[in-house]
């Protein structure tokens, strides 16, 4: 599970240096950036962030407010603060506010990268499991009366969520901006998930007030209600609103393929994965070099059983296709849509 690290810093040059120097860590985390507090709050709401790096400026700025907001609303997300070296008051403020670490400027980007790696490793100090059923596993956690923070990634939609257990009791859950019971039910509709277990749980109040079994039954009911006649789920999850469902890139891709070329054979999976970002960047640079314009999408064959159609965006969308699939047709069908994504995100 590749983690998202959010850097909140208005100095674009500094962010570029960090991004470049952290390339060796690309297998563990990717960087999302926000120039200020407002953009950071939006990313915290819409993305699954594993760690935040923010700046405490001597002249004020959003750093302290952001640290407070994360501690109150996302207590499982560690925050690293960077600030001036000759300002011990700043470090004291950061530590008192709950910062996981403080780096005085100037610092070596590699040192900060290593610290991020160390903190992120704690997210899975209790182990990682792939392709398991969320309901069955979470019932085991309840039975064993474990205290842990569990992060899950739905294999089907690529969405991520987090559950907090204290002595086997489910205290809270979060999927993007959804919290509490609705988030827990959402997570429990996910059939195949990757799970990372962290062997502790932040101090949070109980927002669920329910045992797991009724939530699992409720999630199963929701899933049944939206199942297609063949028994397959319509979607891996229930959108918050119709607008959410329509605008989710995975749903829009499915819809676009179906509308333009009908049912196609061989599409195995559609998900989002930032691990391809480096590859997309290289092809994008190649397009600039050959005066071909901005990249819309690409197909990659690595000699595996599946090929991949990649659609660039804030998160790269990956369509896994087997050799039976007409990938040329799919690419042509998605090209106008992919162009729209690129232009929207460049605004």
């Amino acid at each position: 599970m590749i983690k998202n690290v959010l850097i909140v810093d208005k100095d674009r040059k500094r962010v570029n240096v960090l991004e470049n120097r952290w390339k060796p860590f690309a297998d563990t985390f990717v960087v999302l950036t926000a120039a200020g507090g407002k953009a950071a709050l939006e990313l915290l709401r819409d993305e699954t962030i594993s760690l935040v790096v923010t700046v405490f400026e001597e002249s004020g700025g959003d750093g302290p407010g952001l640290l407070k907001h994360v501690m109150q609303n996302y207590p499982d997300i560690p925050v690293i603060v960077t600030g001036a070296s000759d300002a011990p008051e700043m470090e004291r403020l950061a530590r008192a506010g709950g910062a996981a670490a403080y780096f005085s400027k100037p610092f070596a980007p590699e040192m900060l990268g290593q610290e991020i790696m160390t903190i992120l490793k704690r997210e899975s100090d209790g182990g990682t499991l792939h392709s398991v059923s969320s309901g069955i596993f979470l019932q085991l956690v309840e039975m064993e009366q474990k205290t842990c923070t569990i992060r899950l990634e739905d294999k089907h939609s690529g969405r991520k969520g987090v559950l907090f257990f204290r002595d086997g009791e489910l205290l809270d859950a979060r999927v993007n901006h959804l919290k509490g019971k609705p988030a827990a039910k959402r997570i429990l509709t996910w059939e195949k998930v990757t799970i990372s277990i962290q062997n502790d749980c932040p101090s949070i109040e109980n927002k669920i007030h329910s045992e797991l079994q009724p939530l699992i039954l409720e999630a199963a009911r929701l899933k049944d209600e939206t199942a297609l006649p063949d028994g397959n789920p319509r979607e891996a999850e229930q959108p918050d609103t119709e607008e959410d469902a329509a605008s989710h890139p995975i749903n829009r891709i499915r819809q676009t393929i179906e509308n333009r070329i009908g049912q196609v054979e061989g599409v195995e999976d559609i998900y989002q994965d930032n691990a391809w970002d480096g590859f997309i960047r290289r092809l994008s640079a190649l397009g600039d070099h050959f005066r071909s314009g901005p990249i819309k999408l690409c197909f990659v064959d690595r000699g595996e059983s599946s090929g991949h159609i990649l659609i660039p965006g804030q998160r790269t969308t990956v369509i896994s296709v087997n050799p039976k699939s007409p990938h040329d047709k799919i690419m042509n069908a998605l090209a106008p849509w992919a162009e729209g994504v690129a232009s929207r995100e460049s605004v």
Partner: protein
Amino acid sequence: MKDVFRDIVGMDGIRGAVLLSFDGTILFEDYQESTAAPFEAKQREGLLAALDGVRETEALYQDGRIYIRRSEVGFLLITMSATASVAMLRLNCDILLPNLKATAQPKGLKRFFRK
């Protein structure tokens, strides 16, 4: 080597071709249109690192396509218009690329001193 690529570069919509060895050396290049800048060594190295393990890739851009195909001697990069036939290009590559190995053999006495 130019003979090997004649059929490919002569296809409708093909703008040019570059053959990069696995160490980043340009073994062949032929363009109908000049590129924006020289293909810098650093840029070639970065591209080759990204292509590690890739057998074939096809990228669609706003103003054209780029098709990249792994061969026994390196990666062949072909730039073309958006309307060029990739299926036909793929077929041509299937036929022509096996000839590359023979073409890339060193000339002169070197060929007798194989390791």
